[in-house]
C-alpha cells in the first residue's frame, strides 16, 4: 500500500516536469531496458497481465536520454526463442504508425510456445528516432493460457505449416460477436509471413449439446493476415468455434477454438 502511494507520488512528480502527460491507458509492463548505446529507454507493455501463447498486442513506450517520451519513431520487433540447440522466431506485427498514439507504439507478437525448460524467449526492439537507431534485447516470459489461443496445422494441400491465432471475441456475449483470427505461414524457422489468401468456413458448436448457432459470417481477410467475421452465441457455456481453412487448391486444414463464458 505504501509502495503504491509512493509510486503514485513519484509518477505525479515526474508529470509536473514533463510537457507530455503520462498516458491514461493502463497496460501492464512486461519488460524494460536501456538500448545498447544508451540512446533510448524502452518499456514494453501488454494489454494482459502476462504474455501468453498466441496473439499478444504489445505497446512500446520510448524515452530519450533526458527521460522525455519519444513521440515519433520507427519501431521493429524481433522475437526469438532460444532452445539451446536451435533458435526460431515467431510471427509478429511491427507498430504500423511512426506516430505515438496515447503515448505508445502498438504492435503485436504471436508466441507459438510458452517459455520453460525447453527454452527462453527474448524480444529485440529496435528504435529509430531523432536520427539515431539503437536496439535492446529484453528477456520475456510467455505462459501457456488456460484455453489455447493458438492452433497450428500442416496444410493438406502443400505441406506448409500454418499458425492460426485467436483475437476476438475477448468478451463473448449472447448475441452477435465480432470474430477475428490471424493466420501465418511458416516459411523458415525465422520467417512467418501473414497468410492473406485463404478462405474460411466458421461453424460454432456447443459440444455438450450438439447444436450450433445461426447466421454466422465466415471470416474474410482484411489486412496483415487478419480475418474478420461474426460469430453468434445463443447461450453461455462452452462453445467450439470450428474453422475450416481453404487455399486456392482446396481444404488446407481444420481446427477449433474453445470459447467458454
Amino acid at each position, binding site marked *: 500500500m505504501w509502495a503504491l502511494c509512493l509510486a503514485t507520488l513519484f509518477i505525479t512528480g515526474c508529470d509536473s516536469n514533463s510537457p507530455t502527460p503520462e498516458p491514461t491507458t493502463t497496460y501492464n509492463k512486461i519488460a524494460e531496458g536501456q538500448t545498447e548505446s544508451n540512446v533510448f529507454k524502452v518499456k514494453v507493455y501488454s494489454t494482459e497481465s502476462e504474455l501468453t501463447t498466441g496473439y499478444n498486442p504489445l505497446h512500446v513506450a520510448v524515452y530519450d536520454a533526458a527521460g522525455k517520451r519519444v513521440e515519433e519513431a520507427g519501431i521493429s520487433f524481433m522475437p526469438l526463442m532460444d532452445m539451446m540447440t536451435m533458435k526460431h522466431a515467431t510471427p509478429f506485427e511491427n507498430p504500423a504508425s511512426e506516430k505515438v498514439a496515447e503515448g505508445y507504439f502498438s504492435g503485436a507478437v504471436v508466441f507459438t510456445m510458452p517459455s520453460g525448460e525447453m527454452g527462453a524467449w527474448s524480444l529485440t526492439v529496435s528504435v529509430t528516432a531523432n536520427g539515431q537507431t539503437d536496439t535492446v534485447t529484453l528477456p520475456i516470459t510467455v505462459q501457456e493460457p488456460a484455453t489455447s489461443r493458438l492452433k497450428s496445422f500442416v496444410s493438406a494441400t502443400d505441406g506448409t505449416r500454418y499458425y492460426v491465432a485467436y483475437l476476438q471475441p475477448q468478451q463473448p*456475449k*449472447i*448475441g*452477435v460477436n465480432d470474430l477475428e483470427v490471424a493466420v501465418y505461414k511458416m516459411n523458415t524457422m525465422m520467417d512467418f509471413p501473414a497468410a492473406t489468401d485463404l478462405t474460411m468456413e466458421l461453424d460454432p458448436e*456447443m459440444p*455438450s*449439446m*450438439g*447444436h*450450433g*448457432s*445461426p*447466421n454466422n459470417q465466415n471470416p474474410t481477410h482484411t489486412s496483415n493476415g487478419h480475418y474478420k467475421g461474426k460469430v*453468434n*452465441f*445463443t*447461450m*453461455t*457455456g*462452452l462453445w467450439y468455434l470450428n474453422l475450416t481453412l481453404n487455399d486456392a487448391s482446396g481444404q488446407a486444414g481444420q481446427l477449433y477454438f474453445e470459447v*467458454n*463464458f
Partner: protein
Amino acid sequence: MIKHIKKYLIAAAYTLAVQLGYAQQNAIPSDTVRTIVLQEVAVSAKQQNHRLHLQQFYGANQAATTEELLSRIPEVSFIRRGSYGMEPTIRAYSPNQVSVTVDGMRIQGACTDKMDPATIYIEPLNLQSMEVHTAGGSVMQGAAIGGSLNMKLAEAELADMPTLSGSLSSGYQTAARAVLGNLRLSYATPTWGLRASGTYRKSQNYRAGNGERVLYSQYEKANYALNGKFLLHDDLVLQADFIADAGWDMGFPALPMDVGEAQARIASLTLLRENAERRWNRLEARLYANRIAHYMDDSTRPDLPVRMDMPGLSRTSGMYMEGTAAPAAHQSLTLRADASVSHLQASMTMYQEGQTPMYMLTWPDNRQVQAGLAAQYTLQVGRKIQVQLNSRLNASDFSITTGEGRDQLSVFGYTDTEQLFLIPSVSLQLSRMLLQKLKATVSGSLNGRAPTASELYGFYLFSQFDGYDYIGNPNLKAEKSMQGELTLSWQEPRLRLQATAYTAKVDNYILGSYAPNLSAMTIGARGVKVYQNTAHAFLAGAEASAVYNLNGYTQLVSTIKYSYGCDAAGEPLPMMPPLRNVTSLRKYLGDYLWLQAETEVAAAQHRNSEDFAEQPTNAFMLWHLRAGYKKETEKKVWQLNGGVENIFDVNYREHLDWGKISRPGRNLFLQLTMGF
C-alpha cells in the same frame, strides 16, 4: 347456505341490481354469452341463461377445479399437459387467440411452456361466475379473435345486522389419492363486509384407466383470497381484492419438465357506483397489479443428459373504467377504457457436470403496453328485435427492454424488435323472435389479435407437442379474423334448445413453420420452427344444448359440439377438438337427496395435423354417477356429495391432451361441506 346468503341481500345497491336484472329479462337475452354461476349473489338476466345445467355439475362435485367447471361449457376445451394448469381455449381457436381475464384484469403467464394459465389462480370457492363470450361480445374484454373468458370473483356481502357466516369443506378423490380442504369466513355489516377464504389441494400421481399410475402427475397448492367491501355512500362501493396462490411440485407428465414452485399475487382496488336512477346506472373503475413467479425444472426426472432450470417472471399493472347508461328507452350503452403494462422475463440455465452453466433468456426481457377503448350499444326494437353493436380500438406496443435481450435476438438478424399493433374490432348482432318460442340471432364480426410475447420474441422454446424448438418473429403481423355466427333457440318453461353454428376466416394466421437452416438447441428436438403469418386459416364449428325438465324432479341436460379447422392449403390445423357430447340425467328423491347419471362421449379425431406430428385419437365413452344429500339444521347446512367418475375404468385420452398420456381411470369422490 344459499338461502342464508339471499336473506342478507338487503343492501340498497343490491336491491337495485336485482331489479335491474329482472327489468332486462323482458328483453331478449343474449345468446353469445355462456355463464357458470357459482355463488348466488347478484342475479342478472344474462346469468339466468344457462346456469341451471352448469350449476348442477358444481353441486354434484364440490371438489371440482375451476378447469373441470369450465369444461362443462360446450364452447370451452382444454389443452392438457398435466393434471394441473390445463390451458383453456374456445371452439376451434388456439389459446393465444382467446382472452382470459380475472374480473376484467389481465394476467400474463410467467411460464414459457404455458403451464400457468390465469384459470389456476381462481378457486371455485372464490368464483362468483365465469363468463364465456363468443363472437363480438368479447371485444369488451380485449382484442381477441376467439372469444373471451372472464372469471368474476366472489365478493363480500353487506347486511343490516353484523353477521358472521362461513363454510368448511373437505374431500377425497381416489384416482389421484387427492385431498381437498377449504374454509370460507364472511363478515357483513351494514357499511362494510369482509370475505376470506383458503383452499388447499394435494394430489398424488393419478391412476389411469389401465391401472397404471401416471408418473409426474402430482401437485400441491394453496390459495388464499381476501375481499373487502366498503359502502362509501348510498350507491358507492369501494372494493379491495387480494389473492395469493402458491403451488409446489406440480408434475407435467406430457412435458420434459415439472414446476418446482409457482407463486402468484393478484391485487386490485375497485370503485363501483350502481344506481338505476342515474343516467349512468353503473360505473366501475379498477386499478390492479399482479405478479407471477414460476420455477420450472427437471430435478425429479431421471437420466437426463442435461439438467435444466427455467424460471419466469411476469408483472402486470393496469386499470379499466366501465360505464353503462340507458341513453333512451330500450337502449343500453356500455363504454369501457382499459390499459395495462406487462413485463415478462424468463431464462433457462442448463447444468452439466464440470462445465460452465449454459444460460440464455428464453423470453428476452420484454414489455407489452396495451390500451383499448370499447363500446357496446344495444337497441331493442319492439318486443321482437334486438340489435347489438360492439366495437373496440386496441393498441398494443411490444418492445425488448434490455440490451442483453436485443443482443440475443440479433442472432437471428432481428434488429428492429419494437412493434405497435393497432387493432380495430367491430361486430353487429341481430336477434329476432321468429316464433313465440323460437329466436334467431345472427352476428358478424371483424376483429384481430396481436401476437404473444412467445410468438414475437421466444428464444428456442421447446414444444413437446411437435418436438420442435420455437423461435419468435418480431416482424409478425396481427391476425385478422372475419367471423359469422348463427344461433337458433327454442325456449319454453320445460324445454330449452339452442344450436349455434359459426365460421371464421383468419388472415395472417400465426403458426410455427419449419426453418431447415436453423439447428435445434434442445437435445432430441426435431428441428427449429419460426412463427410466421400463414396466408389464412379457416375455422368452423357448431354447438347445441338441450335442457329438458321431464317433471319437477327429473331433468335432462345434453350438450354437443364440433370444431373444424384447416390452413390455407386445406390441411387440418392441430389441436382441433372432435365431436363431443355430454348428457346428464338428474333425479331428485325427495327434497334432500338427488342422483345424477352422466355420459361423456367423444368421437375419434383422425383429422390430425401432419406438420405438427399430431397423433389421431380414439373415440371413447365414459359413465359417471353422482349423488348429493343436503341437511339443514337451524344454524347449519350439511352437504354430502359423492360419486364415481369413469365407472368402467376406461383408458382414454382427449384429442387436446399432449403426449399420449391417459386420463384418470375410475375415480370415487366424497366431499363433506358444512355451512353456517
